[in-house]
């Protein structure tokens, strides 16, 4: 049985953002009869768990070795610090290991729920410098990216960003990491990937780039990579984000109203005593569903620029940590790699078909797994392969369902209860006052309104499949026509 085991109190006090931080693939692709897995509850609870042993009761279906993700265990000595480490500590940041870094999970001034709500009503500043910032450069940059991702990098307009996926090299259509790609120029792309996948992505890109550069016909299409090591990446999110950022821009002629969601620009920021920063890449977007910006800052300027943002005052902007970031992105229906996405889940299964533009939907689109994806994009009812599981949102009654909780059919009319899937993220939603979750469910049960049960601590809880985002997004798409 796959009921979510929660941590002992003592462990929960110690844990990072999530109660089960890491083993990537917890969910099952196979649909097995629940009765075969069901064990008496007493059996499951008979072993007291010491605070040092983490009970992991989820059978991993995929035997291949797991890559390290976000907060995978590494000893504190190995952990790196972002340029803002001291700033976090001085603001009462409770630091936890995440993605190989010391990161703030929350701050002493606000609890996670308050910080979450403050982001939705005002603005929050998140340090996301742990994420990997790369430049992919050279005349072959767009073509190279089109081999490893399903995005249309050639047609992407300059200074526009797109959510994308590094596709697994086995050609099965899985997602090796999710990423945001920003086109800075025809031969210049800014690519941000997950901190927890740093090593894996480095190997992936190094290998693929070496292969690309030595291939016949690529003599004039060489690519190289430059990592922005030690750089800061700061996200300002919330309805006050624009006001805060506009207030510190050095040039008065940069009008953020003209910078729309998914766009980016360069601008200088005033900070410290009369200093002006270098040109910073400012992208409009984020990971909360709110209007907001992500600002890439050279190492030496990160603290000063961040302090300039915070100088707008705590009534407008506050620091927020990983705790609020996780619940905010979940309300916005966004995936967290290593939890909601992994090597064995395709973009189609993940409900991310929209990241694949029309031009790249054919079997010979040229990216890894294109043939698998092209077949999946066509539903079975129309002669395609379709998918057998889909990522869905859930509203859960009673107990919050968290990662690993099993989704089963409603036990009604004496019908046999069958396993339908697994929750991959879940929490009580501070904005809605309801329990929200996302997970993968057997195709056919994915329609909004479908009633299912979720096993939490061995007991079925009523849940209903729900459209995402759970909370409407508020991206800035320009002034609405009158």
């Amino acid at each position, binding site marked *: 049985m796959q009921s979510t085991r*929660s*941590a002992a109190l003592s462990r929960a006090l110690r844990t990072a953002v999530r*109660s089960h931080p890491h083993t990537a693939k917890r969910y099952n692709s196979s649909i097995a009869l629940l009765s075969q897995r069901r064990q008496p509850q007493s059996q499951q609870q008979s072993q007291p768990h010491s605070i040092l042993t983490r009970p992991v009761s989820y059978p991993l279906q995929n035997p291949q070795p797991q890559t390290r993700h976000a907060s995978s265990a590494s000893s504190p000595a190995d952990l790196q610090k972002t340029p803002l480490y001291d700033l976090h500590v001085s603001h009462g940041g409770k630091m936890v290991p995440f993605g190989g870094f010391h990161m703030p999970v929350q701050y002493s001034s606000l609890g996670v*729920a308050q910080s979450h709500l403050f982001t939705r009503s005002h603005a929050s500043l998140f340090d996301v410098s742990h994420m990997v910032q790369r430049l992919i450069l050279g005349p072959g940059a767009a073509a190279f990216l089109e081999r490893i991702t399903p995005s249309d990098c050639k047609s992407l307009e300059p200074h526009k960003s797109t959510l994308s996926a590094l596709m697994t090299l086995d050609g099965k259509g899985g997602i090796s990491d999710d990423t945001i790609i920003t086109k800075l120029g025809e031969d210049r792309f800014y690519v941000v990937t997950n901190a927890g996948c740093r090593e894996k992505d480095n190997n992936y890109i190094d290998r693929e780039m070496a292969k690309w550069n030595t291939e016949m016909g690529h003599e004039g299409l060489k690519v190289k990579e430059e990592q922005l090591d030690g750089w800061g990446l700061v996200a300002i999110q919330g309805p006050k984000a624009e006001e805060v950022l506009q207030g510190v821009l050095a040039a008065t002629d940069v009008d953020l109203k003209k910078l729309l969601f998914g766009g980016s620009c360069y601008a200088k920021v005033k900070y410290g005593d009369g200093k002006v920063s270098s040109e910073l890449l400012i992208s409009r977007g984020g990971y909360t569903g709110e209007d907001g910006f992500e600002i890439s800052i050279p190492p030496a300027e990160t603290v000063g620029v961040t302090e300039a943002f915070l100088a707008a005052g705590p009534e407008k902007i506050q620091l927020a940590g990983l705790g609020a970031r996780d619940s905010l992105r979940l309300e916005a229906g966004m995936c967290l790699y290593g939890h909601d996405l992994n090597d064995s889940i395709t973009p189609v299964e993940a409900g991310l078909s929209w990241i694949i533009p029309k031009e790249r939907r054919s079997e010979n689109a040229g990216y890894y797994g294109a043939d698998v994806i092209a077949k999946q994009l066509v539903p079975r009812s129309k002669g395609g392969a379709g998918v057998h599981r889909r990522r869905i949102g859930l509203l859960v009654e009673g*107990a919050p369902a968290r990662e690993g909780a099993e989704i089963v059919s409603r036990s009604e009319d004496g019908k046999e209860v069958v396993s339908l899937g697994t929750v991959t993220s879940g929490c009580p939603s501070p904005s809605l006052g309801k329990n929200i979750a996302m997970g993968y469910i057997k195709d056919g049960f994915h329609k909004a309104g479908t009633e299912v049960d979720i096993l939490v601590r061995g007991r079925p809880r009523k849940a209903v499949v729900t459209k995402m985002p759970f909370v409407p997004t508020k991206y800035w798409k320009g002034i609405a026509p009158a």
Partner: protein
Amino acid sequence: MASIARCLRAARPSAFAAVRSSASRTVVARPFSVTASNEIRKYTKEHEWIDLAADKKTGVIGISEYAAKALGDLVYVELPEEGRTVNKGDAIGAVESVKSAADINAPVSCKITQINLVLEEKPGNLNQVPEDDSHGGGWIAKVQVDEQGLQDFETLMDSEQYNEFTANEDH
């Protein structure tokens, strides 16, 4: 900072409290209890507390103020099952905040005789008065303790030891 209830308890004449206490123990359905100053409170390393009554047969359990504070705003409490007999360390319920779920483990071997149903409606009581065992308090359950439970109880920390323990925990 001690809860109001604890402050009151310290000030209450013990004889009076003993009478009230024994009365409350015999009527299980009584909506509130008044605890005696001669009850002993002990803590587990996993941040549960238990008050053992003077008769050494009954007790009240909950989660510590330290834990409640550290967990942040609790939005859901899963209460133990009434009538269930459990061993020390068994998961008997859970508390959940936005960011995490934590098991409540039985601090000693015991039988659950009554649960604090108010928490289902008002999980916030656990944050406000986690160590209060009166009506409106954040106590989790009332229990019966047998010989094994008494032995388990002896191994737990008193409040001074617990304070020292939490001071050393790196949070």
